[in-house]
């Protein structure tokens, strides 16, 4: 299937066959961002003369210490969220793929194929949640919040009117989500503009062929220990203190290789 190179490159935790992007070629300073390691568990089993090597998905480590997002997201929350919830999705996916015809797909292909035009196959939830969580960890940063800058800020101003409008729309959309799910800043490939999107449960914008720029997890497990029923404060703290505009910039730079945004030019780095 035709998979989008833009999103392919964004997909972390993929297999060894996936190309690694020379980020430095964009001339961006990436020092504050540790790129995720993608440990892979290799299992080799020998049958007869041929050795069969099976590669599994690994649990990607968030690019910061687990207490680094305090006080806005506690170490306890991250321990459970990453080491339990995220890990369970990785392990369940590996179990599902063990004897599946879907073994060998890239993560992006897997998500798109198992979404099955809105009638998800059993693997979809785990595949999408593995990807979503990887993407979410990198959407935050201990020194996050503040304002976007340069070309990304210009694009936000172009598409939302102002940064403050974007923030309002993001908050409004997140508060209006019924049940578990995610809220995203995305680049709409066809319309060539940024937009806010909310999705239910495990669904991610990749299945609609849009390019995700930021993600906020709105499952209750993401915030309940820290905020209880106060979803609004959680969302506000994410926007004001955690969101990693650096990641967003890197992502839109990559996206721009496939979507011509015209003026303003991105990035102004």
């Amino acid at each position, binding site marked *: 299937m035709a998979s989008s190179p833009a999103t392919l490159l964004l997909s972390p935790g993929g297999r060894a066959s996936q190309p690694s992007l020379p980020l430095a070629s964009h001339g961006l300073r990436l020092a504050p961002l540790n790129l995720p390691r993608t440990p892979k568990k290799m299992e080799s089993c020998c049958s007869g003369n041929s050795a069969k090597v099976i590669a599994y998905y690994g649990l990607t480590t968030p690019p910061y210490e687990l207490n680094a997002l305090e006080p806005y997201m506690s170490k306890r929350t991250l321990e*459970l969220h990453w080491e*339990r*919830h995220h890990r*369970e999705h990785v392990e369940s996916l590996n179990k599902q793929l063990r004897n599946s015809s879907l073994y060998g797909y890239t993560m992006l292909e897997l998500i798109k194929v198992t979404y099955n035009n809105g009638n998800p196959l059993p693997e979809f*939830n785990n595949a999408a949640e593995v990807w979503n969580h990887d993407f979410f960890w990198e959407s935050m940063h201990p020194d996050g919040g503040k304002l976007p800058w340069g070309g990304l800020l210009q694009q936000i101003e172009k598409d939302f009117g102002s940064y403050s409008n974007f923030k309002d729309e993001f908050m409004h959309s997140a508060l209006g989500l*019924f*049940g*578990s*799910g995610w809220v995203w800043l995305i680049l709409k490939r066809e319309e060539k503009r940024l937009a806010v999107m909310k999705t*239910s*449960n*495990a669904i991610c914008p990749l299945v609609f062929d849009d390019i995700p720029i930021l993600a906020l997890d709105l*499952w*209750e*497990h993401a915030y*309940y*220990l820290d905020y*209880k*029923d106060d979803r609004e404060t959680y969302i506000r703290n994410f926007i004001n203190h955690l969101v990693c505009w650096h990641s967003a910039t890197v992502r839109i730079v990559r996206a721009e290789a496939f979507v011509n945004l015209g003026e303003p030019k991105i990035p102004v780095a």
Partner: protein
Amino acid sequence: MALGFLTAKTLGLGFRARGAAPALGLGFGQSRSLHTVELPDLPYDYAALEPTISAEIMQLHHQKHHQAYVNNYNTAQEQLEEALNKGDVSKVVHLQSAIKFNGGGHINHSIFWQNLKPSKEGGGDPPHGALGWAVDQDFRSLEVLIQKMNAEGAALQGSGWVWLALDKESKKLRVETTANQDPLVTKGANFVPLLGIDVWEHAYYLQYKNVKPDYLKNIWTVINWKYASQVYENEVV
């Protein structure tokens, strides 16, 4: 809606008529009144279900979550009334999702509180009489039913509910799940909820964290089968 009426009647959901507002501009001289809903009291203390469900969870769940569904449903209803009076059809349609979500949240939680009972007051005692027979007949045994509800609750993606339902027409029991706050009636007008288990994370996360199966396993020690039996007998007899 038949079920809405039934639950309001059997559960004593706090429906209250608010000052009859004369319908303006319709020229039919008919007056309508808004029935706002209220947060029902719990029939036990917040701590009464410990150690199965902690007092902190019960208090947040009742005072914050259920209260929010009540408030948001009443607000949506006012907006709906206004939109209906103005003939603003797109607004009327737009409000449906908020009404379904918050109205469903109110219906579901009102049933849920009745479905629970402290162990020392008989919570967890298996069903006897007509419902006990029906469970054996439709599921082979109570254990099989519990396993089925636990499995479906654990497998439910995202937020939602797992139900023991009575199909009023066939008189058969069934296990159903609904997403988010969809009430059981969205699965079919014939379905009467005997037992609903909340599998939203807010129902168990402070205590059970990511181990939803333990929550589901434990909750049976505080299930009020007497209530389920009464609803069943009212429908079947």
